[in-house]
């Protein structure tokens, strides 16, 4: 089902806003994670981890659902399809696990924020977990940047499924 041009533009706008918003929110999260890790002042560290928890729950999690969902609409409602082009398929295979991993890792984020709220964190407190937050946010940012680059460049490469569908459609159009 191909969307009419007006609806297609609207769906594309929604997908772009949610995807780039997700990228920006993860970049903010990473900045706070670095500030929290390197912060010598307990007040600063507490503020960083509490902000990270809020950004994660109220911005990153909703956008991590909105972006793949609008992407699904965009791919299924245009000739690009979901499984026809490698770049679309790769984006799907990168973003769905990212969302699932994010949900799994909300636990450590909540835990760190909870400890920071009660006692403040400094020096070596929860160092492994705090370092993990920095690394995971960096990895997430890398994945989202890759997805953005794929969307802009749309590298060539049709899947076998896409090729079969294309041939089928051509044979229907030109009997």
């Amino acid at each position, binding site marked *: 089902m191909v969307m009419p041009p007006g609806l297609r533009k609207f769906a594309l706008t929604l997908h772009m806003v949610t995807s780039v918003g997700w990228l920006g929110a993860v970049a903010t999260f990473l900045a706070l994670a670095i500030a929290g890790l390197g912060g010598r002042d307990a007040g600063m560290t507490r503020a960083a981890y509490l902000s990270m928890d809020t950004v994660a729950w109220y911005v990153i999690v909703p956008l991590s659902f909105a972006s793949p969902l609008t992407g699904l609409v965009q791919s299924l409602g245009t*000739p*690009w*399809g979901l499984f*026809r*082009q*490698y770049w679309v398929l*790769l984006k799907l295979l990168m973003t769905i696990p990212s969302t699932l991993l994010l949900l799994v890792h909300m636990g*450590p984020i909540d835990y760190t924020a909870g400890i920071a709220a009660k006692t403040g964190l400094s020096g*070596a*407190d*929860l*160092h*492994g*977990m705090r*370092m*993990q937050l920095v*690394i995971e946010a960096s*990895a997430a940012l890398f994945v989202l940047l*890759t997805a953005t680059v794929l969307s802009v460049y*749309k*590298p*060539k*490469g*049709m*899947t*076998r499924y*896409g*090729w079969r569908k*294309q041939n089928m459609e051509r044979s229907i159009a030109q009997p």
Partner: protein
Amino acid sequence: MIEPRESKATPPGIPRWLKLFGMVAAAFLVLVIILHLTGLVGMGHHH
């Protein structure tokens, strides 16, 4: 608007950019596994 198109009569293979991406992703995964195994990064390291 650019539309997807493949004009060849033979089935397409895996593009070069995807092979390169796969290699980089595999190297990254190995790095993550090593970091976890060496205990440099991970949950439960409460010092």
